[in-house]
């Protein structure tokens, strides 16, 4: 007895082929149910005598039921897929914890002092309650703005040299190596450099806003160079050739074709570089110092900045301490908001400046 199947051979072959393509799969709702159960256990555990940490850990361990279940039903390949997916999501949530924690702490402690007065008054002649961070906001904006004015031309022109003129020769390789070394300069060293430089001109004990800008520029330049370099490299060579073939000199090709095409990326890179240095404390503490008054002159005397203000408010709060500590958190919150706004601006710029087209 070989077969009793009345269907023709062709149909049976087709069926065999199809069944060899099919595999066992977990139902679509499987991940949701496992994660749901794990989350419930985590919440219950956190509320019970286990405590938050152990409860969440228990819930997380429970989610590994999914790859094990998958291995039994689906086989090793899909089980590995689910395991790695689980690990990636776990790592993602782990990375979110410090971010969420910072935002929560800064907002919850800084919001209480936020008021129109806090943002528009300086600390001049204020003891105890009241006063504001107007002088520190202005100082941060001026010093960071000047740092940007110094570092963007240097950084952009360096990137243009490396990509458009150097093209892998020894000088450009040397510059790129030095830029990489510069990336690793600790911010305190940049501050000491700026201080040493200004002492040469103005003598010991010099304090100037522009010195802070120089220190921040030292930190910003390598970031601007590397991001602009990557953006310039992304401009297709065909555009350069198209322009050169029209009889346009190389410098005009760079100024009018290459840089405008890469502009969105360059501006985004610069904005992120600003966001990176705006929170630097150590170099500003050395060279820009701290003051209670508003100072709009970068070239004359101490200037307050938000990070230094937050540091001194919390380190030397005075008596009674709570008002000063609250103002420190308020400054931290303002700084965080400025950085968030800068990131938002970077997004908008790359959206509005990037070459338009239906591609």
């Amino acid at each position, binding site marked *: 007895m070989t077969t009793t199947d009345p269907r023709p051979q062709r149909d049976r072959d087709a069926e065999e082929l199809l069944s060899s393509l099919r595999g066992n799969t977990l139902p679509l709702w499987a991940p949701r149910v496992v994660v749901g159960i794990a989350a419930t256990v985590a919440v219950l555990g956190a509320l019970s005598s286990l405590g938050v940490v152990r409860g969440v850990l228990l819930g997380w361990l429970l989610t590994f039921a999914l790859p094990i279940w998958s291995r039994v039903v689906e086989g090793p390949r899909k089980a590995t897929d689910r395991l790695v997916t689980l690990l990636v999501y776990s790592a993602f949530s782990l990375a979110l914890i410090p971010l969420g924690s910072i935002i929560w702490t800064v907002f919850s402690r800084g919001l209480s002092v936020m008021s129109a007065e806090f943002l528009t008054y300086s600390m001049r002649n204020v003891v105890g309650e009241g006063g504001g961070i107007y002088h520190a906001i202005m100082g941060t904006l001026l010093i960071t703005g000047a740092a940007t004015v110094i570092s963007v031309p240097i950084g952009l022109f360096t990137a243009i040299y490396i990509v458009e003129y150097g093209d892998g020769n020894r000088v450009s390789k040397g510059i790129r190596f030095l830029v990489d070394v510069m990336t690793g300069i600790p911010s305190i060293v940049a501050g000491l450099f700026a201080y040493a430089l200004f002492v040469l001109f103005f003598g010991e004990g010099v304090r100037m806003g522009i010195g802070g800008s120089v220190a921040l520029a030292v930190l910003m330049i390598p970031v601007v160079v590397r991001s602009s370099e990557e953006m310039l490299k992304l401009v297709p060579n065909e555009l350069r*050739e198209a322009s050169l073939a029209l*009889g346009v*000199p190389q410098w005009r090709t760079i100024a009018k074709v290459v840089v405008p095409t890469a502009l969105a990326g360059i501006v985004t890179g610069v904005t992120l570089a600003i966001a990176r240095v705006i929170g630097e404390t150590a170099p500003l503490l050395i060279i820009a110092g701290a003051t209670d008054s508003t100072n709009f002159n970068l070239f004359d005397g101490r200037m307050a900045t938000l990070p230094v203000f937050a540091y001194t408010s919390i380190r030397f709060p005075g008596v009674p301490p709570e008002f000063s500590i609250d103002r420190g958190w308020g400054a931290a919150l303002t700084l965080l908001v400025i950085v968030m706004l800068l990131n938002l601006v970077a997004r908008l710029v790359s959206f509005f400046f990037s070459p338009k087209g239906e591609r």
Partner: protein
Amino acid sequence: MAKSIDVSDLNIYYGDFLAVEGVNIAIPARSVTAFIGPSGCGKSTFLRSLNRMHEVIPGAHVQGKVLIDGEDLYADEMDPVNVRRMVGMVFQRPNPFPTMSIYDNVLAGQKLNSKRMKKSESDAIVERSLRSAGLWAEVKDRLSRPGSGLSGGQQQRLCIARAISVEPEVLLMDEPCSALDPISTSVIEDLIHELKEKYTIVIVTHNMQQAARVSDETAFFNLSGVGKPGKLVESGRTEKIFSNPDEEATEAYIQGRFG
């Protein structure tokens, strides 16, 4: 205003590597000359040496003479920028400037060189160039839209309009249709026929039928072996090269029994 080109004993190098060896060819004015030959035989390299675009690649240089109406392109006092204004080029892949509108793309040669023009004057140049490139009817209502929004064939015609708006003497085309469909290709071939009234046109193509359709003269390039330089095997009237070439290799290549 079109000019003839005379090339004698031209060797083209990339660094130390000799890419094309000993080219002698006369390209007549107001005609279409096609370069054919297998990939890597130096057609494009030779074409790019005709407007000094070759030396944009670091280390690339040439020996020999390229005379355009008796003037040596590679003479010491020649400025490559001026050479490229006289000898325009259309590339294999359409490359309109993504940051510019259609209007600005056509005027790119003038705008990038910051030439001051009256609005009426620039309008006239744009219309004339787009009409010559056969694109006017399709884009006249959306001149301010970005050039990269056009189809591939339209983009290539936009690039041709851009190249002829600076009124070059010679127009070099490096496989202008290889990225295009047959309909766009035939539009561009018709265009080449019209343009040769005014310009000297040199075109590189892998398409034998295209060479036969559009060109008056044909030059066949070949490699003598792997790692050896490319050479000009023979050149002459297109009818002769396609029907009764002097060299065995040319006939074999054209008939498709190559190697």
